[in-house]
């Protein structure tokens, strides 16, 4: 069986920064991702990031991907990248099972970091399974990674940052966004993102949701209706729009399967997006030597995932007796970065979530 010092499952912003911290500490890293290229969802983020310079603010996600990847590639033979590799099992003796090209193999590591990210949620409504109903991030992948428009006329459901940003990116690709529907009475993402699409003519409709998708074999329209203050549909308020694509942007859920599979304690925290692993203050799960970071432990912005990733890498290195050269100063600085990223009014949900899990005071 192949032996590795550290294994990182997931090559997104959290996994790449964890890899960098481990490499800086002198450790060897095996970074695994099921996709052909590393970077996770950064690969389709054509917008500039928020945050401060420390989290690459004002840089487009696609450029951050290149930066994070080159940061780890310069360590040469100490970093091994396994792409198009699916981790199908993690065991308590720190053995993982993988599939690549229909071949099955096992590896053992001294530390395993699970940074699997998240998946997009869906919304219950009639005909929500018709082809043409896509997750907002899926449409972003189709457009920005493969250069293909999802359709000609799109309804966006949900006004979080993803819904607002993907609406803008649809318009940049030359697709008409006929409306954005939000069930709540206010938009939930950053107002600057809403302003960007509103000034270019997108109708932003609050207290509004989709009642059903129209079409037999694929989407040909949507029926919308107004919601009352308790989010119940108002009979008689329905109207229809002709369109070919419905984008769902109603939040993300952490990908927690591997935590459950290895037997780590997992709890449901609604504010963090769903089932999340219990972790200690070194990002270690309840399984010795198995760590977790990024969206897999709670839905936040990619900027927080990067900070968490580096901290996790430093802690994992420490546990392997490979101290990071600036261990204590880096950890202190990263704690401060996280505190600022989580201190604004938009991070209220995250603060509640972490409090529930008993971590952030």
């Amino acid at each position: 069986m192949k032996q590795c010092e550290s294994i990182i499952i997931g090559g997104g912003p959290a996994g790449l920064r964890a890899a960098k911290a481990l490499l800086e500490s002198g450790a060897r890293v095996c970074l695994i991702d099921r996709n052909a290229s590393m970077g996770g969802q950064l690969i389709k983020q054509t917008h500039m990031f928020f945050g401060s310079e420390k989290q690459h603010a004002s840089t487009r996600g696609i450029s951050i991907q290149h930066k994070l990847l080159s940061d780890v590639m310069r360590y040469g033979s100490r970093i091994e990248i396994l792409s198009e590799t699916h981790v199908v099992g993690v065991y308590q003796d720190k053995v993982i099972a993988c599939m690549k090209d229909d071949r099955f193999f096992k590896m053992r590591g001294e530390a395993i970091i699970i940074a699997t990210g998240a998946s997009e949620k869906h919304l219950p409504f009639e005909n929500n399974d018709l082809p043409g109903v896509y997750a907002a991030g899926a449409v972003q992948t189709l457009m920005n990674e493969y250069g293909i428009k999802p359709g000609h006329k799109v309804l966006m459901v949900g006004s979080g940052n993803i819904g607002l940003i993907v609406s803008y990116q649809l318009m940049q690709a030359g697709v008409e966004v006929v409306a954005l529907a939000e069930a709540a009475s206010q938009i939930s993402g950053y107002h600057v993102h809403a302003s960007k699409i509103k000034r270019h003519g997108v109708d932003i409709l609050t207290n509004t949701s989709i009642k059903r998708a129209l079409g037999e074999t694929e989407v040909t329209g949507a029926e919308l209706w107004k919601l009352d203050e308790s989010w119940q549909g108002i009979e008689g308020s329905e109207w229809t729009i002709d369109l070919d694509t419905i984008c769902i942007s109603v939040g993300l859920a952490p990908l927690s399967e591997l935590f459950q599979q290895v037997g780590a304690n997992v709890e449901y925290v609604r504010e963090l997006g769903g089932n999340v692993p219990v972790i200690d203050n070194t990002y270690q799960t309840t399984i010795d030597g198995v760590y977790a970071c990024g969206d897999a432990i709670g839905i936040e912005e990619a900027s927080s995932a990067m900070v968490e990733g580096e901290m996790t890498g430093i802690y994992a290195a420490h546990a392997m007796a490979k101290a990071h050269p600036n261990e204590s100063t880096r950890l202190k600085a990263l704690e401060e970065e996280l505190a600022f990223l989580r201190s604004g009014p938009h991070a209220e949900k995250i603060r509640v979530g972490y409090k529930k899990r008993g971590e952030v005071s």
Partner: protein
Amino acid sequence: MIEKDGVAPLEMVAKEFPSDPDILYKPKAIIECYKEIPCNPCETSCPFDAITIGEDINKRPHIDFDKCTGCAVCVYNCPGLAITVRQINDEGALLKIPYEFLPLPQKGDSVNVINREGRVIGQGVVKRVQNTMRQDHTPLIHVETRKEHIMDAMTIEVIA
């Protein structure tokens, strides 16, 4: 209403303008970042230290119009595209607007001038299209329009 559709009412916008209107005879950045979000590239990108957010990056930016030269570096560094540069002169109002769509207008083109709600409020003439490598795909459209639109103009629409 800003909470419902991101549109700041003009009385809110007016507070981001210099209190002395004569200041706008020189170009000045008008920052429309009305809510606290964790973000500070406007502060760190400003070559003249005119914008202050401070250690807590959630705070709203404050601009010192005495220091601002209207260079527009903050305009293309703002991830929210929430900054424009505005100036009045004897002919009208001159704006530098971030514009990330195709087709780009050309110098001399007539364009529609659009307000925050996405409505056409008038016409403008493109004086310059600034699109350097440093801007990383956020071109700036320098557009001249009527003086009365100094506050309600927000973007442009290329006339097909």
